[in-house]
């Protein structure tokens, strides 16, 4: 080193010519540096290895462990979400009992021994691709050929995509079908057997849909589409995730339809164009002239450009759109008003009435569901925020006597209100609109009072209101076996009056 320093001080760095001795000395240092860089590489970026399991009533993923160059999975991790297995040691042997899905009250049994490849399932001998292991009290079976264990044990159809690490039980897999609607520009429709919720993001002109929890499969890996807009699609399964890449000649946009069972892919609009992203079709018909840049969508549809969830952005235009969220839906019935009358039916009926009242006041409306469909909390937030609403109303019902209006309170205490000009945090976007939400609740209570309906205004920790970037309230109506206890049209009319009062030029302040 001393020698090098002397050289460096004697001549400018660019003119230094190291002799062979100096090169030999620098070589080990370079190796050390390279070695350090190798160990300091960002290992956290590597995704943990897993298998995604799709059963008719459960979707989950389990970790993959490597021993002696072989991959293993925990048998109890795999079986537990499907039933209540019992694992008992019997000397060196272990016995696993799982409820037999074919005959209730009976059990399917499996016997195995640690370190042995031979196992007995329902009295029949079979051989594993590698010996069973017990590590930290967890029974591990080799991943390769796991179907030979699961088919007799569970007595169900098992399809295992080993390279993609996706396991389908009981015929859970459903194929993706695509339909290219030629036109100027063309639209590519992807149809699914059930509602899907992929993670969508774009890379250049390619739109990438990643399905983690949806049991979708494609039978073609690469497909040429031969269209001006769509050049082709590629399907890949890797580490429990199915990825469908749609390649285009221009940036693409994904749009959900048919309550999430269809994804329509079209050309993305030019980025500088400001506008609202969602509205109801009926609004389109009644007010076509006022809503430039509005993309017509069917009921319950939402536009999802880029990744999900997208950043919550404040509206850039002054368009007045109301998003109505009929609480619950599908498998989420909400409160049982009576054994035969779930909350979801009352909220949908009231939402339709409110939409009608708002439309008669020439206000654009978007409903988060217009049928008995499952809409997750995240889907509600994404659809609502992309509609860039001025007002968001969530509707609920309960068996009681009181009519209540709830203003959202955030779970985290904030010392200063959020800046609307910056990106808003997903969990607390409402923080930038708390004052307007409070004022809207007071206006709604006032409008109800004018119609001789007494409403309490109360704070509530209620989703999806926390994440809504707009004035937001929730309304809970009292209900009994006959439906809403108070006249539905009076409630809807009063709420519409209060909302119309917020519209610029509508007699109120926004």
């Amino acid at each position: 080193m001393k020698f090098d320093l002397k050289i460096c001080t004697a001549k400018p760095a660019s003119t230094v010519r190291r002799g062979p001795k100096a090169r030999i000395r620098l070589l080990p240092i370079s190796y050390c540096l390279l070695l350090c860089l190798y160990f300091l590489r960002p290992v956290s970026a590597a995704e943990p290895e897993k298998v995604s399991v799709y059963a008719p009533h459960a979707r989950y993923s389990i970790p993959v462990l490597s021993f002696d160059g072989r991959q293993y999975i925990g048998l109890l991790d795999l079986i537990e979400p499907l039933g209540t297995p019992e694992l008992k040691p019997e000397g060196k042997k272990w016995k696993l009992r799982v409820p037999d899905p074919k005959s209730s009250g009976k059990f399917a049994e499996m016997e195995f021994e640690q370190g042995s490849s031979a196992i007995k399932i329902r009295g029949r001998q079979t051989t594993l691709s590698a010996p069973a292991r017990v590590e930290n009290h967890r029974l591990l079976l080799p991943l390769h050929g796991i179907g030979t264990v699961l088919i007799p044990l569970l007595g169900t159809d098992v399809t295992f995509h080993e390279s993609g690490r996706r396991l389908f039980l009981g015929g859970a897999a459903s194929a993706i079908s695509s339909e290219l609607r030629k036109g100027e520009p063309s639209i590519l429709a992807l149809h699914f057997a059930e509602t899907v919720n992929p993670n969508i993001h774009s890379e250049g002109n390619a739109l990438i849909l990643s399905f983690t929890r949806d049991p979708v499969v494609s039978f073609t890996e690469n497909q040429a589409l031969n269209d001006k807009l769509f050049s082709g699609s590629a399907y890949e399964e890797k580490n429990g995730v199915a990825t469908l890449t749609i390649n285009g000649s221009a940036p693409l946009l994904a749009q959900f339809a048919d309550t999430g069972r269809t994804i329509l892919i079209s050309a993305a609009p030019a980025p500088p164009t400001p506008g609202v992203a969602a509205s109801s079709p009926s609004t389109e018909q009644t007010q076509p002239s006022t809503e430039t840049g509005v993309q017509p969508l069917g009921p319950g549809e939402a536009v999802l450009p880029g990744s999900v969830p997208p950043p919550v952005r404040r509206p850039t235009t002054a368009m007045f759109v109301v998003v109505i969220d009929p609480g619950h839906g599908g498998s989420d019935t909400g409160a049982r008003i009576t054994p035969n009358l779930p909350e979801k039916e009352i909220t949908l009926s009231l939402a339709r009435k409110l939409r009608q009242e708002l439309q008669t006041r020439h206000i654009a409306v978007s409903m988060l569901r217009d049928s008995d469909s499952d809409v997750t909390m995240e889907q509600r937030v994404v659809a609502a925020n992309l509609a860039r609403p001025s007002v968001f109303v969530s509707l609920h019902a309960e068996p009681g006597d009181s009519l209540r209006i709830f203003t959202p309170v955030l779970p985290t205490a904030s010392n200063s209100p959020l800046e609307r000009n910056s990106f808003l945090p997903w969990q607390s976007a409402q923080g930038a609109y708390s004052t307007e939400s409070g004022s809207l609740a007071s206006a709604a209570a006032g409008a109800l009072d004018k119609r001789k309906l007494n409403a309490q205004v109360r704070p509530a920790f209620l989703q999806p209101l926390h994440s809504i970037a707009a004035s937001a309230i929730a309304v809970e109506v009292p209900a009994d076996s006959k439906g809403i206890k108070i006249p539905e049209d009076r409630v809807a009319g009063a709420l519409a009056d209060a909302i119309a009062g917020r519209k610029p030029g509508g007699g109120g302040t926004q």
Partner: protein
Amino acid sequence: MIPRNVQITLTLLLVAILGSGVYILLLHRNSEEGLRRGSDQRPVAAPVAGAEQTLKLTIAYDEDGVFRTRDVSAVVPSEPSARAKAVLEALIGYYLGKPSPHELAEGSAVNSVFMVNQKLAVVDLNQALVEGHRSGVMVEDFTLISLIDTLATNLPQVQQVKILINGKERDTLAGHADIRSTYSTAAIHKVVTQLQ
């Protein structure tokens, strides 16, 4: 005719076989009992005893739509996690009594409370509490607020509370109140003050 010595030998062998059988049966029973005890998760020792203290419970009154503070006496351990669990058990016990100002489902209980850095309390509630909980924005919120504010009042060092159900995250308590978020005790106390 079997010789006498053979008869004696056979009798002895028969006795030995029967004796071994009984011994093996006993061993098998003992081993089964051992396994059963091993898998039994019930506590075998009483919790750490502490002095009887006055706890302040934030009680929800559904009919009036308000919160009121009530004092109860209870033996509370000094260890923070055990103390937090005892405080919440006292609150749930209050609600399970008859008449109750805010009814909870029978069997509602706290599985455990974990303290993280003494500031974050992770409260694991049992399935019975959520499965039998009445569905509604206000009633669900009242349970949530009451639990968190009672915890923060009696353990002032707790600044954040996270609710789990049987060790797992859940979106809502019974369809409405958000329990996926981590709650700031200050935000909760602000609401309690408004509704007192």
